[in-house]
């Protein structure tokens, strides 16, 4: 099956895809369903915003494979790679809205410290983010804290940048299912 996909796409299948094809009943199928819902299900956050959150959480976790994969996907979704790079370089000065900036700050703290306070959440809400948007962002955070760990544990191999761009195109067209 991997060979077939490679034949059609002309690009190697990323290890992230192989992981969900391996014993899919145990992890792949339910994981894809959750990740797809978090990343492509109904939300007031755009696909670009959610892919940016995925890249940002991955950066906090220092997961190179996931940072590269979701930087490419967010950049394509926004049609603005420099914006994504600016966020990953310095979220405080990046050209994004205050709500998204406050949300990213909160996700970074939760991922790094394992907890956030009610005060942290009030700061996000005060920046104009709805309760539902916070929940949606937490779902993205949960999905990528899982994926980052598995990428490290199973040693996902980095791809050439054109292969990450091809993967991003696939994720935008087909999602995570």
């Amino acid at each position, binding site marked *: 099956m991997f060979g077939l996909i490679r034949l059609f796409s002309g690009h190697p299948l990323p290890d992230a895809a192989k992981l969900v094809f*391996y*014993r899919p*009943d*145990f*992890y792949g199928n*339910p*994981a894809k*369903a*959750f990740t797809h*819902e*978090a990343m492509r*299900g*109904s*939300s007031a956050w755009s696909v670009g915003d959610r892919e940016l959150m995925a890249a940002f959480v991955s950066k906090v*976790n*220092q*997961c190179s494979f996931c940072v590269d994969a979701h930087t490419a996907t967010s950049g394509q979704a926004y049609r603005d790679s420099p914006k994504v790079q600016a966020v990953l370089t310095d979220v405080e000065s990046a050209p994004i809205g205050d709500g998204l900036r406050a949300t990213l700050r*909160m996700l970074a703290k*939760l*991922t790094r410290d*394992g*907890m*956030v*306070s*009610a*005060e*942290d*959440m*009030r700061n996000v*809400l005060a920046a104009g983010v*709805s*309760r*539902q948007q*916070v*929940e*949606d962002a*937490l*779902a993205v*955070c*949960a*999905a*990528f*804290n*899982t994926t*980052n*760990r*598995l990428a*490290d*544990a*199973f040693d996902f191999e980095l791809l050439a940048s054109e292969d990450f761009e091809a993967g991003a195109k696939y994720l935008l067209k087909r999602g995570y299912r």
Partner: protein
Amino acid sequence: MTELEERRRAVPEEDKKREAHRALVDRILHGPGKASPEQRAQAFNNADIPPPLKTLIGKVATRPTQITDADFDAAKAAGFSEDQLFELVISAAVGQSTRLYEAGLAALTEATSDGNGD
């Protein structure tokens, strides 16, 4: 609109994401597997892990960038199969991210239950 009404209105979308997450957790903890449900629960909770697995599972949960082949080799030498380790590593990863998800949702509930939220 009262907070309760707003919560009711928000239920369907909230449910879809959280329901999909619950289904994932239920599957890896309680569905068929090569590792026992008890072993999967220990890995998920990162608690009461037997010594040959402790380093690997602890690293998956809290410092995944430091996982090495030696951590897997130690677990295999103690008799764990690759299929069992696959399940236990996944259980540990989903367990840690579930704790983060729940901590975030609890903080959000606290922030919005005293009238200061949206």
